[in-house]
């Protein structure tokens, strides 16, 4: 491999297939690793809890982007599939008494199965029509978790025991966030890496083929129906994992956490981050999780001059969310990932424009 002024020239297929080619890319990866390793020691518990929420959102957003960004199947059922993961993991662990890792694996498999089932309309429907069909799945799952009293034993919510894995139990308040950080970081990293891997193999390419030209995909031998259902299964598996982790992390499961708002929030994440990009899903998850926090801080800081900001915080928050999505769609539809790429290009070509 040689990185010269004319570009990157690979000498073997193995080096071309690597996710990182240049020294600066490895340097950035190292920098990121160091940052992630010191993060829990410099942040206080409150900000660490925000980071933990981001890590869960990363898993969910990567899962959704596999389906929406890479396979072109618009889904509004995100909240529902997360609910399946959360409720099933909670019930497997606490009512059936499975060890937590097994409960989470069970929840992932069940979410994948439910996702595949609700993906069946995708065999006939495309675009907006599929969005409406997945909206139906969101409504159906939401209805079930609200009304099926067996799930919550009539309480309306499920309590989840403190997370425990192979005899290690997450500790009390002081170390709770920090220990969760490591668990979530490992799982989020595994999610991102396996999604990156997926899209440098034939299976991932067939997803993109179905997104770009489904007739041509069929003509080269891609079983479009099977690919769509596989995409629904993989995507809902990751989304179910995010749901299960939400359950174990917050230690209580109730339907309010998995409404249509959640589906739209996750769609916003991948639109803002960049459709069809794993890194984009990560950026979007960070951006959309931190945005309400930033809005809150700004509102607090300006409460003396503009008191209505703090009084009407939920409304201001929703309005800002909407504004951000609109701005991204107008200015950079390919999201934060594209902005990052353009910045890198700008630096690389400086002082020339291109």
């Amino acid at each position, binding site marked *: 491999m040689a990185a010269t002024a004319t570009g990157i020239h690979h000498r073997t297929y193995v080096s071309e*297939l690597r996710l990182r080619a240049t020294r600066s890319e490895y340097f950035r990866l190292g920098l990121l690793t160091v940052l992630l390793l010191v993060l829990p020691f410099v942040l206080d518990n409150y900000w660490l809890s925000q980071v933990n929420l981001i890590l869960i959102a990363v898993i969910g957003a990567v899962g959704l982007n596999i389906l929406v960004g890479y396979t072109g199947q618009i889904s509004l059922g995100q909240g529902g599939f997360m609910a399946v993961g959360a409720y099933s993991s909670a019930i497997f662990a606490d009512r059936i008494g499975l060890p937590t890792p097994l409960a989470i694996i069970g929840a992932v498999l069940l979410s994948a199965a439910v996702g595949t089932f609700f993906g069946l309309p995708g065999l006939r429907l495309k675009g907006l029509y599929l969005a409406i069909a997945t909206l139906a799945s969101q409504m159906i799952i939401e209805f079930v978790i609200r009304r099926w009293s067996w799930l919550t034993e009539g309480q309306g919510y499920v309590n989840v025991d403190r997370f425990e894995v192979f005899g290690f139990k997450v500790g009390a308040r002081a170390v709770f966030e920090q220990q969760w950080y490591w668990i979530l970081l490992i799982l989020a990293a595994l999610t991102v890496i396996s999604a990156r891997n997926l899209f440098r*193999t034939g299976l991932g390419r067939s997803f993109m083929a179905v997104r770009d030209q489904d007739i041509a995909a069929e003509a*080269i*031998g891609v079983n479009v129906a099977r690919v769509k259902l596989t995409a629904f299964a993989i995507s809902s598996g990751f989304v179910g994992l995010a749901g299960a982790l939400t359950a174990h992390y917050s230690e209580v499961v109730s339907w309010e956490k998995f409404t249509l708002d959640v589906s739209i929030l996750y769609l916003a994440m991948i639109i803002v981050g960049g459709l069809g990009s794993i890194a984009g899903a990560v950026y979007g998850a960070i951006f959309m999780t931190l945005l309400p926090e930033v809005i809150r801080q700004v509102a607090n800081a300006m409460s003396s001059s503009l008191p209505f900001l703090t009084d009407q915080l939920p409304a201001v928050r929703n309005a800002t969310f909407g504004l951000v999505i609109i701005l991204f769609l107008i200015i950079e539809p390919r999201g934060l990932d594209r902005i990052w790429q353009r910045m890198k290009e700008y630096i690389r070509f400086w002082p020339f424009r291109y």
Partner: protein
Amino acid sequence: MLTRSYKHSLRGGHLPAGEALLDIEEATLRFGGVTALSEVSFRVTEGDIHAVIGPNGAGKSSLLNCISGLYHPQEGRIRLHTADEAGSRHEHALTSLAPHRIARLGVARSFQNIELFHAMSVLDNLMLGRHIHMRHSVMQSMLWFGPARRQEIAHRQLVEEVIDLLQLQAVRTKPVGSLAYGVQKRVELGRALCLQPSLLLLDEPMAGMNAEEKEDMARYILDVNELAKVSVVLIEHDMNVVMDISHRVSVLDFGVLIADGTPAEVMAEPAVIEAYLGAEDEGAIHV
């Protein structure tokens, strides 16, 4: 011309040249009240370039879509003959198969309006042509190291040979959507070749090209046929090209087969002259 020997054969089947490859028997296709194909029958022989010509709306593309399974004719049969390595023959009724199953039998095609995966690179488009020859396990794909990576590299070698054959080296990593029209047509031919087809269906591969690009494309098709020994069914409007490179020609007019034979036979057919030039014209097709 091939400048060096390649490791992989681009031809998928093992049928000896001269045997019947594709039998179209009384194929009739209707869209509501419109009859796109009416009892069309002809045979494609292994090893041939078989041209299908006819005026606009004659049903040429419909016929190709019937062969590749995108349309299902209401009546008639389309049978594909294949032979395995041991030499035993198999017969497949294409009329009842889904397009992806037909592709797995070795029928590859290009489209009249380029149907490439525009956001992806030339390389990815060609690698997608290898889809039917690859194994796709979810777990192995997500783990990457091991079988998934070995498979990517193994199939890349054949793809590189196709890139070399079609002289696509310079655009290998470019997104297909950014390429010139003529190059996109070539990429589409390449993607079909990556399937290692036993039958290659080309729907107007030279439409919208200038004379030079047409000559290039004709050369590529001849290379594919003569050197890689792939049988080709070709739809084309340019008579010069058709008469030049094809072994047999079938002529459709308003969904009816009006002539079928060698280029010379077809050119002499009065019905063909009438379809192309109108009745009472004494001239022949200008070649």
